[in-house]
């Protein structure tokens, strides 16, 4: 592991001679030739990160969910704990991360995990990096009664923020979605959660459910507002291939709202939550009283994240081996195989791909624009090698058109989607990606020319 000073030394070395980095044998085969040379010094060298821990098991299958989860009658909790702890340690070591700003236990249904499992993971994080006492540690929890009864133990294990999968306050819709709790369970979970984690309980709601009308949604939101804490996440129901709901819609047993109604549902929610004092800070996230999730914000700001557990994704630079290029990592999907891998190798990484400069620019752009704060010029320039947002997007015809239509704002400090722009972001981003790609290829041409001249 490198100290901060060593990192700076490395950085300066890299600046001097971008092409002379030694890549250890062990990892070089993973990294494509191209990215070894074209990536630039940047914030990917930061020594902090957030950690995501995946608990892959669920009690039952929700009709809409295509996440990496497993319905298993028997879960070997002890083995899972050993493996999660082992992999956390390995990945932290490989990343060289000094500080972990937040931890998120997601799933699956992580509230089905034993509290001591979560405690053990938090312990190992603390052993390898600084985990500040006030760091946000979130648990995704099902509002079913058994899990609600464990909330106190989870708090004792180190959890300080709760994300409750309420999804809907409509009893028939809970059935349609295949949830294993009642509305009463939800209300009790929220109440219990707010007692234990005041100001730090988030609820997830799904809109665009079969047969949903704007009026019913409005009433439901009012009900949510009457019981909720300071954070709400709104997810639009997406029909994923392979799910029960997808089949039902295909077979015409269920009908989901048409795109225009979807738009109305979203608009209604934004307005209703705004009236209740909630600020939207990302496409699907709303908070008041400063209750924004710092973990989520780290994703959108393009910070490093380390994903632990079956199928978890990461974005971080492994430096244990001298490798300082940010990579995408994907852990082995299936829990049994993943555990086997962790036991053999200390980690279950199934795939590592180096991110090129363009990849990083594109991701940062896509994620940054999802937030209401937008993509800051400062962050952009760290990755772009100095070119500002204005330099790159100011001359784009498409961008000018977006600005004129009131969908986008571009200033010296930030590129940001407007309120209207946020709702149609997926129609805006492709043009911005093209602009970014043009910039990247012109940069490469310049580099190539410079190489010829100096060479």
């Amino acid at each position, binding site marked *: 592991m490198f100290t901060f000073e060593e990192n700076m030394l490395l950085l300066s070395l890299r600046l001097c001679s971008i092409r002379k980095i030694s890549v250890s044998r062990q990892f070089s085969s993973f990294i494509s030739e191209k990215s070894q040379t074209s990536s630039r010094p940047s914030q990917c060298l930061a020594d902090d990160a957030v950690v995501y821990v995946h608990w892959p098991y669920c009690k039952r299958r929700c009709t809409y969910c295509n996440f990496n989860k497993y319905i298993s009658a028997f879960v070997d909790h002890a083995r899972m704990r050993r493996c999660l702890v082992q992999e956390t340690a390995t990945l932290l070591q490989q990343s060289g991360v000094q500080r972990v700003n937040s931890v998120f236990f997601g799933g699956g249904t992580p509230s089905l995990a034993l509290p001591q499992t979560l405690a053990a993971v938090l312990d190992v994080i603390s052993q390898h990096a600084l985990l500040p006492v006030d760091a946000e540690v979130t648990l995704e929890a099902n509002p079913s009664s058994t899990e609600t009864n464990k909330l106190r133990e989870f708090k004792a294990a180190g959890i300080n923020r709760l994300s409750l999968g309420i999804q809907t306050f409509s009893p028939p819709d809970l059935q349609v979605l295949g949830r294993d709790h009642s509305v009463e369970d939800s209300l009790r979970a929220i109440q219990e959660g707010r007692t234990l984690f005041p100001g730090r309980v988030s609820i997830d709601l799904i809109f665009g459910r079969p047969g949903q009308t704007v009026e019913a949604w409005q009433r439901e939101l009012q009900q949510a507002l009457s019981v909720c804490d300071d954070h709400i996440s709104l997810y*639009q129901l997406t029909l994923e291939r392979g799910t029960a709901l997808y089949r039902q819609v295909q077979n015409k047993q269920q009908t989901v709202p048409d*795109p225009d109604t979807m738009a109305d549902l979203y608009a209604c929610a934004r307005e209703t939550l705004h009236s209740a004092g909630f600020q939207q800070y990302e496409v699907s996230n709303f908070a008041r009283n400063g209750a924004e999730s710092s973990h989520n914000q780290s*994703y959108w700001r393009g910070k490093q994240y380390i994903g632990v557990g079956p199928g978890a994704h990461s974005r971080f630079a492994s430096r244990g081996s001298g490798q300082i290029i940010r990579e995408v990592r994907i852990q082995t999907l299936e829990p049994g195989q993943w555990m086997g891998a962790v036991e053999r190798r200390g980690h279950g990484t199934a795939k590592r791909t180096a991110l090129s400069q363009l990849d990083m620019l594109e991701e940062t752009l896509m994620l940054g624009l999802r937030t209401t704060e937008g993509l800051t010029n400062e962050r952009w320039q760290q990755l772009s090698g100095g070119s500002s947002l204005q330099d790159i997007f100011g001359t784009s015809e498409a961008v000018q058109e977006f600005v004129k239509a009131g*969908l986008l704002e571009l200033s010296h400090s930030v590129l940001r989607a407007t309120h209207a722009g946020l*709702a*149609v972001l997926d*129609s805006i981003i492709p*043009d911005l990606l093209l602009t970014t*790609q043009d910039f990247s290829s012109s940069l490469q041409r310049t580099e190539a020319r410079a190489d010829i001249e100096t060479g």
Partner: protein
Amino acid sequence: MMWKRFLCPLCQRIRIITHNVGYLAPFASRRHASSKSSDGQIDMSQFPVENIRNFSIIAHVDHGKSTLADRLLELTGTISQEASNKQVLDKLQVERERGITVKAQTASMFHQYQGKTYLLNLIDTPGHVDFNYEVSRSLAACQGVLLLVDANQGVQAQTVANFYLAFESELAIIPVINKIDLKQADVESTEEQMRRLFDFKEEDFFKISAKLGLNCREILDAVIQRIPPPKSDPNQPWKALLFDSTYNHYRGAVTSVAVVDGRVRQGDRISSAHTQKTYEVQEVGIMSPDHQATQELHAGQVGYLIAGMKSIQEARIGDTLHLSNSPVEPLPGFKPAKPMVFGGIFPMDQSEYRDLKVAVDRLTLNDSSVTVAKDSSPALGLGFRLGFLGLLHMEVFNQRLEQEYNATAIVTTPSVPCKARLSSDKLIKQYKTEEITIFSPAEFPERRDVTEYLEPMVLGTIITPDVHLNRIFSLCEAKRGEQVDFTYIDTSRVLLKYKLPLNEIVVDFYDQLKSITSGYASFDYEDHSYEPAELVKLDVLLNGQAISELSTIVHKDKAYPVGKALASKLKNVIPRQLYEVIIQAALGGRVIARETVKAYKKNVLAKCYGGDISRKMKLLKRQAEGKKRMKKIGNVDVPKDAFISVLKR
């Protein structure tokens, strides 16, 4: 299009290769029965004019023309009797697949009759009227034809058209009824139809099965008995009709010639009556059925001639060739073929433009009837506007482009040239004429500047079982047709003649006719005239901006349905986007159809973090890739596919 279903990529490759080998080999000779000189070549001087017969087989598609040709070649020993002899003369892949003949081919055969050896030249002609120019060219080298009719199908539209071509050329016509072995064969009523329509005598008929070889030998004798030898004089200076040409990469133009008078031999200095250019004969020979060099060609004989003509343009079809030192009175020649159906052809991707150009150039080398003009469309980029003799011609061309040159292209809806009589002095001055021909909607003059518009009409022949008459009447009426003839050709089959606007039949008339008659009706047409018509230019606008490549010239009565159909077609292919898209079809300033593609109210995936990033990124990048292939009209992104689906046939 239809043929794609039958394509096997592997076979295609193999076929093309074998085809090419035939071309590249220095015209090596095949087995031959006749007497040869010491160097293995046939002595052509042993066939005086009176022992020569030049004939052709004419028939409707699938009536067995090529099969009969195969049998005649076998019977005369020109090719050996093998099971694999199928359509020996149809060398193009498209010909074999479609069972049609596109390019004229000749084959020389030797036949013993009453102790003498006769030279029979079979000139295989295309059956379809689109290739009429090929037929008439070939017929100019013939003195007689075999008129072949399938006993199962009876006389068909092309039979009629081809009969008249031969009749007008004053050729001897031998009626042959084919496929008499088949269960459904109705020899009697086929005979009756032919007698009624073509005024044949009873004793004239041959009843054969080309497939089984039944009664085919008798036809060879009949050719000698009933078709006169060519009217040629061996003592006059050499004079030959150039009636076809193909292009060989190594040897230049390979011309098909019918020697009228005199004799030509390798090494002779010859000239073209048209260009006055002089060449040295490098090789002459006969097709038997492959190129077979013969040193000489004599009066009345038909063969090939290679004389170092560098381009197909130099080998002008219809030209008269003569010895350089003895000029002759030129033969009447041919009117150049006049294209009647125009279609744009564009590469799928602009990077393929050069390849497409090479392919088009190569193909037009062998098909001088196609006119080529460069075209450029804001949506489809650089391409060509090609003029064809008819629809089948266009389809065959495109198929050959694809099969022989591996070029995939976007082919636009065919259009026809209309005319305008100008009233505006300014325009008359500008065009230096009062009547202009309009090839593209961009050239369409405004109503106030013209006295009248004219559109090309054709005379269509339909032969159908009478049970389908009502539906055919409705179809022809819908296509603005005017009935000019109605004749029962036997107890249940009717020959109809309709005057139809060409514009109405270029797209799907034939398909519709086939479908309403379950395939029992046959159709053919010939050019008729230009007649006054209320024509209008229909524009298509996206958010107020006209898209020139979607403009079209239509009859006033059709403007409304066509405009509505165009607008709704576009509505279905233009994806929803950030901005509202208003699609309008307009006549002048008047909007006659309108559709709206509503703007997206919401287009953003709600949840996005962790693993989702990769997936989401992939999706957005794919969309970005897609944008590159879109055409921006104002602020509207129009996928190329949208244009293609509207423009494509």
